[in-house]
Each structure stands twice: as C-alpha cells, then as structure tokens.
C-alpha cells in the first residue's frame, strides 16, 4: 500500500454568490482506506466531491488528489480517479456491454483489456445474461452496481461515490458495500458520501459535515468514544441540531 496520502485538502472553500457551500474544510484520506463523508442534505458533501473530481473550481484553499493539484492538473487527476454521481449516469439507450465499451475506450484501454474486464465484471456482478440488454431495462439496484463497476473499469487509484446507495433496497445496499470492500481490498481508495448513518460503520474513517464545515473526523470508534455516544446516529443528531436551530433562527 502506498504511504503517501491519496487526498490532501487544506482550507478548501466554495462560495456561490453570498452563500458558502463549503467552508474551509481540511482533511486527508490515506491510500487504500474507505473514507465516509456524512452530512445532511445540503451540508456541502456533493460540492466538496465536485471540487475534488475537478468538476467545480474551488473559491480558495488547496487540494491534492492522487498527488495532483486540483487547480493546475485537473486532467491528470481525471486519469487516476473514478466517479459515480448521485444521478444515474450510464446511457439508458445503450446495452450494458456498449456502456462498458464506451468508457473503456475513453480511458484508452486496449480492445483486449476491454474484452477481459467486461467478462470479469459481468461475472462478478452476475450480469452475464443481461450483457446485451438495454440499461433502461435492468432493475435499479443492478444499474447502480453496474455504474460503480464502470467507474472502476480503468482501475483508478481513487474512486468517488456520491450517495451511491440512495433509493436502493437494503439487500442491494449490502451487496453494494461488498463491492466497495472488494475494491478497497485491491488497493483502491474509496471516498463515499451518504446520509445513511448505518453505512458510516462500514467506513475506515468518517467525517461529518454540518453547514459546509467538517464538524467531526475520525474512525467510527474514536468518534463514539469522543462524543460518548452509542451510535453515529446519536453523534450526528447532536452535531446537526445546533446548526438546524441556528438555521431556524434566521
């Protein structure tokens, strides 16, 4: 496992007009770990991820992703990362195989590599029978798993998952986390956002975002000890409440 941190973030800030969506966040993600980004809707998780994937220009602060600077080396970052957004983002009018082929080509994989990895991926997902079906015809849970696997197709160093399990049934969520562990076991760094607090327990380390700031960061165990709480849920409610209260006062 590589010793250099996969992601280094210092005082990263993003403002939209007068509104500060992400407010001077600072953290590091170690290579090979599963890092959870927790927060309520609108806490700034997606904005942060979009800056780290070089989709959104930061207002200020620094960030290095896979050793590349987000300001100057956006395109180098893109070779080293995979991304699965909140919105389902495979082409529904293409078949499973065609989608895989498209992204394989974009990431400069050889025909041989595309062929081998397609076979392997379909076997792993148990989707061999559906390889030539249109994506719109397969159930949502399968689609999410497929999207995740496609994000890993070019074997990126880091994969960003933005609410990958929203709207998915509990069994599929379970299976999804198994896929995440498998990826981590192969040495891929995983940064995942979620608002399912039970999923936090699956992460190596988590950070809790409240109103654009990181309110807490550490392993689930450390945080529970620090806040003297029995579950992440409890910590979250405690952290989020003052923010919600001040929000209500405005």
């Amino acid at each position, binding site marked *: 496992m590589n010793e250099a941190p996969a992601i280094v973030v210092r005082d990263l800030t993003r403002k939209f007009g007068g509104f500060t969506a992400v407010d001077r966040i600072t953290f590091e993600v170690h290579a090979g770990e599963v890092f959870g980004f927790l927060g309520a809707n609108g806490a700034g998780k997606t904005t942060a991820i*979009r800056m780290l*994937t*070089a*989709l*959104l*220009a930061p207002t200020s602060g620094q960030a290095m992703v896979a050793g590349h600077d987000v300001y100057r080396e*956006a*395109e180098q970052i*893109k*070779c080293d*990362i*995979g*991304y699965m*957004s909140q*919105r*389902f*983002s*495979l*082409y529904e*009018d*293409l078949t499973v195989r*065609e989608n895989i*082929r*498209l*992204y*394989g*080509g*974009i*990431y*400069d994989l050889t025909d041989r590599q595309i062929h081998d990895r397609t076979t392997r991926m379909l076997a792993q997902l148990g989707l061999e029978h559906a390889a030539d079906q249109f994506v719109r015809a397969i159930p949502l849970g399968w689609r999410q798993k497929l999207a995740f696997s496609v994000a890993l197709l070019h074997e990126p160093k880091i994969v960003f998952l933005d609410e990958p399990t929203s709207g998915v049934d509990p069994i599929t969520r379970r299976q999804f986390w198994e896929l995440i562990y498998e990826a981590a076991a192969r040495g891929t760094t995983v940064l995942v956002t979620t608002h399912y607090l039970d999923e936090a327990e699956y992460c190596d380390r988590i950070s809790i975002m409240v109103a654009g700031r990181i309110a807490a960061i550490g392993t689930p165990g450390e945080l529970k000890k620090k806040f003297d709480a029995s579950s992440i849920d409890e910590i979250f409610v405690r952290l989020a409440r003052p923010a919600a209260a001040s929000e209500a006062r405005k």
Partner: protein
Amino acid sequence: MRRILFLARAEVLHVVRDRATLAQVLIVPIVQLLILSNAATFRILNTPTYVVDFDRTSASRGLVTRFAASGHFQVTGQSASLDLANEALLRGDVTMVLTIPRQFEASLVRTGVAPIELSVNAEKGSAAGIVQSYASSIVATYASELSPATEPVPIRDVPRIDVRMRSWYNATLNYKHYMVPGILVALVTLIGTLLTAQNIAREKELGTLEQLNVTPITRGQFIAAKLLPFWALGLINLAIGLLVARLVFGVPVRGSVLLLFGSAALYLVVALAIGLWISTLVETQQQAMFVTFFIMNVYLLMSGLFTPIDSMAPWVQVVSQLNPVRHFVTIARAILIKGAGLAEIARPLMILAVYGAVMLTLAVRQYSKRTA
C-alpha cells in the same frame, strides 16, 4: 483519436436507437423536399383574368383569344360590368382585369391606334410586373399581326437594333432547378442544427455529461466526437436528397459532385459547430429549442434561399454574410446549376473555412469540463 471513435460510436447508437427521431431525420426531410419544392415558385402561369369587353367586335374578341391562348392567362370571368370586374379583383378571384373600350375596332380602323386598360392586382409586387410584361407583349404581338402586310420598309430608312435575349443556366425558367438545391440545404441544416443544439443540453439534463467530464477526454475530442456522427448523417441526407433532386425533379448537376460534397463537408462543420456551441451555452433542451427556432428563421429568411440577397436592404446584406446558409446555398447553386468550379466558389468557400475554424474554437472553448 481512438477516444473520439468510441464516443462517436455511442452517439451513432443513440440516434439509431431512437426510432421517432430517426424517422424525423431521414424520412420527413425527403417527404418535405418532394412536396415543398413544388410550392416554392414565383412562376406565373394561368393568371386568372377578368375581361370587360365593351366593344364586342372581331378585333376585341381576337385580342381576348390571344390572351387565353398564350398560356399565361386564363379568362375566368367575362361581362360588360366594371363593377363585377372590380368585385372579382377585390375578392381575389382574378389577378388582372382587361378592359376593352367601345369603339376599339372602329378606332383601330380609322386611326390605327386604340387604347385598352389593364388593371393588375399589384398586391404581389414583382409578380404584377411580370404579369404586365406578359400582357404588354401579347398586345404588341396582336397589334403587329393586325397591321396590314406593308411593303418592306426601305432598308436605308430606319436603322434597327435587334435585341436577342438569352437566359443562361436555366433556359426553361424552371423554378424547381433553383429551389430544390436550396430547400435541400435548408432541410439538412435544420436537422443538423436541431440535433446538435439539443445534444449536449440533453446530456446536461440526464447527468451523463458530468460522467464524461470526470474522464480524461479532452474538450477537443469531445466536440469532435459529437460532431462526427451528425456530420456523416448530414452528408448521407444530402446524398439522398441530391438523388431525389436529380431523379424526381431533374435538377441539373453541371459541376463536380466531388466539389459539391467537399464544400458540403466544410459547410456542415460550420452548421454543426454552431449547433454544438448553442448546446454548450444553454442549460436545457427547451432553451436549445427556442434558440434554434430563432436561428433557423434567420437562416432561412436571410440566406437568399427564397428571396434574392440582392433585393434585401443594404444592412441586411451585410449581416447576412454571417449566415453560413447563405454561402452554402450560393455554392450549391453555383456548382449544380451553373457548373462553377473551385475558382468561382473560392470566396464563399474561404468564408466558410474561416467560419468553421472560429465556430469550432468557440464551441470547444465554451464547453468547459469544470464549472467556474
């Protein structure tokens, strides 16, 4: 290069899979070309004419017969009432009223000169002029027929200039030869612009654009991959349309087909780049539609497609230089109808080349993988 091919291939699949769009793209234009080409004509045939003959002599009847037999006029009403004639003109039933006064024949016999009156519905500006010139020539011919076979005029007496006329490139004055290439260009442009203008906007709406934005694909590759399939589609459309033009309408192909398709290849880059540029500017497909709507109007009405550029107000003529359709319509007509070569179309071709480079740069620059 390989990335472009992969993305372009997916783009082709999108089009092929969407049956409704495919039909709109391939069939509707051909049907429209077949039907609408017949509509676009300023040619004046069978002008409905009302005759008010107060004279009722063989001379007056002879004149009316000449009008009816000319092929340009059709006598649809006849009476001895100016009111009825006026009414027909107001109702729009007739375009011209021919009035032959009393004593027409008598006057011709006595003095050799007689008046008639032609009232033309000039609502339709230039058409009225043509109707008038047809009518005048019929009247003149009739007058000379009536003239007694005089002995040949002594040669030394009257110097004479014979005017001969020749209509180049379109001797039969067939409007379809002129319009079909133009309408074809319009349809190819309409479809190309529409598909490209919607394309990126649609990916923005679906969220698939963001997925592409986190890949290492470059902006140039992205635009190229978006352009390529529609470029090919445009050329295919043009080829089918040209075949229809040749076989159904007998449009001449006097110049080099290769030169035509070479110019078309260049022109389509301009038209599609404009479409893609619109698509990167707007956020939703609906906005893309509105902009396309407006641009298509400008494309069609300010290109010399239907009405000549030379007749437009001077400032419009200058502005229309910005209209790529203008240049390609000029090129297409010059090659097909006039048999022009590269040297003759060099100027519009150069303009298109510069335009294409500018628009591609704009589209690539406007498309940003990262939100500011």
